[in-house]
């Protein structure tokens, strides 16, 4: 009995030590839940984006982590479905010591967890989508539409079209069709486009495409009859390839089409074939190759840890977008560590501060091997977007090429005014006192 008791104690001690060691090991890892979608209608975008995120995480870990803190993650399949996304968020938010941040890559899911992240104190990034007015950190302290929002993009579009016409004043009397996915996403740029319509005197025609957009003959026949100077394509998924092909069918020049950045990936142009040649879209990444992508090829794919099944997709639009997102998160974590303790695992609140004080300038981009890959970004409590700059790219039949050598910036003052008005309305509805969060 005595032997048995001592053996039991010994086993218990070993088990306790192992558990403690395990906990300490887990505690040295910064956990990020990945609400991905790899099956379903939007799987190709999801697999590229989250593939980029995981590839960058693996690169950071291969280089020793963030000041020694390794990144850990767990994927949960949302299928781009809002309710599943919320379920995934709830399932993962407290795992492995708690989520440091979250990125749902879907407006529906982002709206679903918008209020929850503020309560849970977990920052949520929404790169290039979601609520544009969330750029106001005084009202949305835990939401970060980093780099650029839909409103900034719409302003950038008009700036580009104005430049193309020979100046913004030359847009007077021109006809612009806004062909949009009939959803909150498609209607998001209305305030900006309508404000510009009044200001510049062009004629804006809005044409809705019902979800999913796999049939657009009637819309494009209307466009043909209207004979616009430009068509803004605000689409997502199958709608984009069908729009490009139907434009070709009715003889509308693709050079006069300008897509939203969710209509500007290889997944949108390859199915459209030759019809996509000359088609232009907005982007917040400059297409091309960068040292960080070479590093991923060498250190991640070379070690057999690459996330993309098809290596040809390395450096594609969605993959690069995922790398960009992950890079900014890691910069946020690094920033937080500089303030709250190097080599420590950061809480959501601390990472929130890190994201709110980002300053990724050209020198920092060079150090990260991503010089010019995305606009320089400097966030603050008042500006969770941090940039607002965009670029225009063209599909040459095989790859995307940058059209504008420099970053395009729309009317920043107009966008900021809209952000202030809209966020104030939200604050009043939710009884939020607008103020910078302590940190």
């Amino acid at each position: 009995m005595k032997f048995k008791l001592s053996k039991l104690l010994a086993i218990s001690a070993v088990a306790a030590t192992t558990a403690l060691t395990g906990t300490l090991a887990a505690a040295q890892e910064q956990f990020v839940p990945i609400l991905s979608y790899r099956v379903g209608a939007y799987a190709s975008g999801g697999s590229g984006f989250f593939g980029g995120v995981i590839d960058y995480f693996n690169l950071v870990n291969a280089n020793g982590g963030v000041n020694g803190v390794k990144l850990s993650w767990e994927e949960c399949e949302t299928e781009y479905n809002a309710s599943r996304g919320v379920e995934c968020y709830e399932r993962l938010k407290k795992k492995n010591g708690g989520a440091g941040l979250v990125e749902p890559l879907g407006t529906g899911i982002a709206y679903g967890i918008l209020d929850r992240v503020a309560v849970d104190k977990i920052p949520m990034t929404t790169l290039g989508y979601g609520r544009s007015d969330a750029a106001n950190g005084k009202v949305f302290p835990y939401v970060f539409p980093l780099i650029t929002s839909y409103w900034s993009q719409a302003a950038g579009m008009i700036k580009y079209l104005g430049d193309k016409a020979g100046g913004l004043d030359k847009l007077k009397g021109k006809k612009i069709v806004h062909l949009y996915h009939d959803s909150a996403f498609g209607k998001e740029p209305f305030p900006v486009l309508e404000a510009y319509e009044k200001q510049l005197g062009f004629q804006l025609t809005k044409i809705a495409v019902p979800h999913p957009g796999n049939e657009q003959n009637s819309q494009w026949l209307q466009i043909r009859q209207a004979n616009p100077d430009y068509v803004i394509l605000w689409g997502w998924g199958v709608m984009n390839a069908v729009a490009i092909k139907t434009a070709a069918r009715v003889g509308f020049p693709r050079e006069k089409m300008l897509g939203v950045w969710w209509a500007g990936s290889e997944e949108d142009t390859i199915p459209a074939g030759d019809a996509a040649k000359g088609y232009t879209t907005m982007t917040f990444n400059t297409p091309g190759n960068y040292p960080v992508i070479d590093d991923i090829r060498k250190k991640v794919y070379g070690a057999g840890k690459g996330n993309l099944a098809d290596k040809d997709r390395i450096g594609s639009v969605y993959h690069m977008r995922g790398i960009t997102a992950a890079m900014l998160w890691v910069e946020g974590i690094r920033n937080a560590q500089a303030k709250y303790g190097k080599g420590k695992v950061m809480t959501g609140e601390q990472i929130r501060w890190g994201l709110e004080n980002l300053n990724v300038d050209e020198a920092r981009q060079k150090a990260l091997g991503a010089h010019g890959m995305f606009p320089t970004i400097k966030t603050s409590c008042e500006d969770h977007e941090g940039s607002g700059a965009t670029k225009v790219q063209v599909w040459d039949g095989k790859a995307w090429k940058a059209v504008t050598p420099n970053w395009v910036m729309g009317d920043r003052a107009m966008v900021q005014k809209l952000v202030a008005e809209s966020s104030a309305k939200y604050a009043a509805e939710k009884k939020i006192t607008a103020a910078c969060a302590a940190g």
Partner: protein
Amino acid sequence: MQFFFEVLIAGLLSGVMYALVALGFVLIYKASGVFNFAQGAMVFFAALTAVGLQEKFGLSIWLSIPITMVVMVALGFLTERVVLRPLVNQHDITLFMATIGLTFFIEGFAQLVWGAEVRKLDLGIADEPIEAIMNSTGMLVSKFDVTAAAICGVLVAALAFLFNKTKIGRALRAVADDHQAALTVGIPLQHVWGVVWGVAGFVALVAGLLWGARNGVQFALTFVALKALPVLILGGFTSVPGAIVGGLIIGATEKLAEVFIGPLVGGGIEGWFPYVLALLFLLVRPEGLFGEKIIRRI
């Protein structure tokens, strides 16, 4: 007036594409009384298999199509054998639920085997206006849509021949009329159902290839089934010509409605307008234009 006819023709040609999907539903419903919810998934699976074989094994499209045809017919037979045969004599709703389960299985399995990336499918048919029509009338009529309509016509003719002029066709019609009576005269019910599911698999392949070439091969192909539902309600669930006529009516009216009524109400109405039309038809003629009128005596 020219614009009206242009919209009308575009609608009629789109309607043929809807009818192509609706045909698969009709075949199975006519022979077995099962509403095959998985028809859209079968269209997706067929197109994905055709391009998947091309990509993975470097086959030409003209070689991958016959192989996919074998795969689709096998899938049809397998579905009958594994999913439906064990459920014979169960309620209609049970069979319907089984096809819902089948839908999710096929969608998941297709992506597991071939991946979820969007692919291009090139059948060598240009999707551009026919110059002769454009020069003489100023109207744009797509070569691709006209070719698709011709293929659909050939398919319907082949199905009509199969149903009306062959032994298996007579058996199919007998089974469709009355399962019990067909059994009593020695028609092998399960064999007939297997054939029907196989043919539906083939129809799904044709639809998948044409829709895939038009829009790219991607998950959204499963949504084309939604376009087929009002066609079925209008044309009748048991009539091959009904699927065609229903497709033409739905295609034409949804386009005309979108172009001429849409702008008055904010647009985007072609998604639901066909369903309103189908609903109105249901109120007046529940069996559809060509469906069998069911008379129950009390």
